[in-house]
């Protein structure tokens, strides 16, 4: 890796997926997707970012159902979902596997099929998280992409399969070893392009300040940013 944090690279990959997006909603505990969205917003001021659990100046005034009502009407085009397990058909599991209990499905069962640009994001890239078939389907939908700490996959709606597009600090061979489902490989698959000087300047400047307001621990860890800065 170069002179940048891994979180910065992942945020750049997310921002680069957002061309043409109008309105992203971000659920609980998602500092890297939030960072990617704020970075994209620096380049496209018409792009709206709604943080569902923001403590101050929360964008919703009709309670926690408003997010789902917006999505139900098609007013949100970008959302992020993770999973204790994610499989090669794009299904995610947030409920249980191997006798272990996870927190639960949250709004995923609704948001995934409703939001056209759902990006699956899970930092851990292993055969434990990326499985052939999930033990429980919390939600099923048509993802726009799957981003992990090691790789970016696009989704091929025709073949209903993921396709490896790029890998970060890794190789085709390592990705094959660490991925539990079958996928295609783009003929152009390559190392993920590192953040540009412009992206780094935005991330460490205005974006870090925005992120610190909602994810103070994350901002302190990645940038040493505090709210007073």
């Amino acid at each position, binding site marked *: 890796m170069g002179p940048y944090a891994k979180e910065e690279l992942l945020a750049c990959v997310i921002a680069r997926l957002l061309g043409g997006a109008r309105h992203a909603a971000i659920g609980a505990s998602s500092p890297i997707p939030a960072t990617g969205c704020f970075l994209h917003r620096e380049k496209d001021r018409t792009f709206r970012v709604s943080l569902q659990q923001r*403590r101050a100046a929360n964008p919703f*005034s009709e*309670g926690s*159902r408003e997010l789902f009502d917006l999505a139900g009407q098609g007013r949100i085009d970008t959302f992020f979902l993770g999973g204790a397990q994610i499989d090669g058909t794009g299904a995610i599991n947030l*409920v249980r596997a191997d006798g272990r209990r996870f*927190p*639960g499905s*949250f709004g995923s069962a*609704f948001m995934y*099929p409703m939001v056209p640009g759902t990006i699956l994001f899970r930092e851990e890239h292993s055969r434990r998280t990326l499985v052939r078939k999930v033990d429980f389907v919390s939600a099923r939908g048509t993802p726009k992409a799957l981003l992990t700490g090691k790789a970016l996959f696009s989704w091929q709606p025709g073949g209903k399969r993921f396709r490896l597009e790029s890998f970060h600090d890794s190789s085709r061979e390592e990705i094959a070893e660490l991925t539990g489902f079958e996928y295609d490989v783009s003929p152009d698959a390559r190392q993920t392009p590192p953040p540009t000087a412009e992206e780094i300047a935005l991330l460490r400047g205005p974006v870090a300040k925005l992120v610190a307001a909602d994810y103070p621990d994350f901002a302190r860890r990645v940038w040493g940013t505090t709210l007073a800065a």
Partner: protein
Amino acid sequence: MSDVESLASKIPDGCLLALPPDYSLVAMEVVRALVRKRSRNLRLLGVPILGMSADLLIGAGCVAEVETSAVSLGEAGLAPRFTEAAEKGEIKVRDATCPAIHTALQAAEKGVPYMPIGGVIGSDLIAGRPDWKVVDDLLIVPALRPDVALFHARWADEAGNVWVGRRRELATVAHASRQTLVTYEELKKGDMLEDELLAPGVISSVYISATAHAPRGAWPLGVAGVYAPDDTHLSQYAKAAKTREGFQRYLEEWVLTPRKSFSPA
């Protein structure tokens, strides 16, 4: 008996008790009082998810069943007592998804038996919910009518109204429930419905069964604009509750000794 204990005494064992998420005005003082009075067989409903309140009640043996879209301590991580109780089969979990719970409560507030919602088709949640039906590719959820809704408010007034601001899911659950019990930070003189700026954040006394004064009553969770969640305490709880013994020590220090639970952040 304090006002808070008397509010807790109105919550019978075995009832369906609706609680808000950690970010939405939780009546933690009453939750601690439920542990002290040894509530049993509560059926919790997360509106639409649950956090520390549920984890405390589950760990203290007050809960038989949970219907929720998730139980999590947010940034502090997994809810350890929920996780262990679910894995050991000590509680029954009826898994849902957020908008299904909102819609089921909206059906109850409208007085209709069920309502449709989009999405969800393709999820294994449906197989675990014989009460949910699929008709014409739409999910139909039956109305949910909790026995008791319990939450905290910024203000109550002399007319019996309470103010929850933008936390409108609390209005929905109050409309839908048979009884609504509310603790509040401060009492306002007069009637908040006479104030055009306050009225949109009010839940009318029509829906409120009883209130109790509980300053800092949401602690260690927060009240927006008044006090922030006590993140240090929440992560201490998350760590302590990883084991039964640690949880028991937490209960003794912060719940079973009432004066300590009023500790300022």
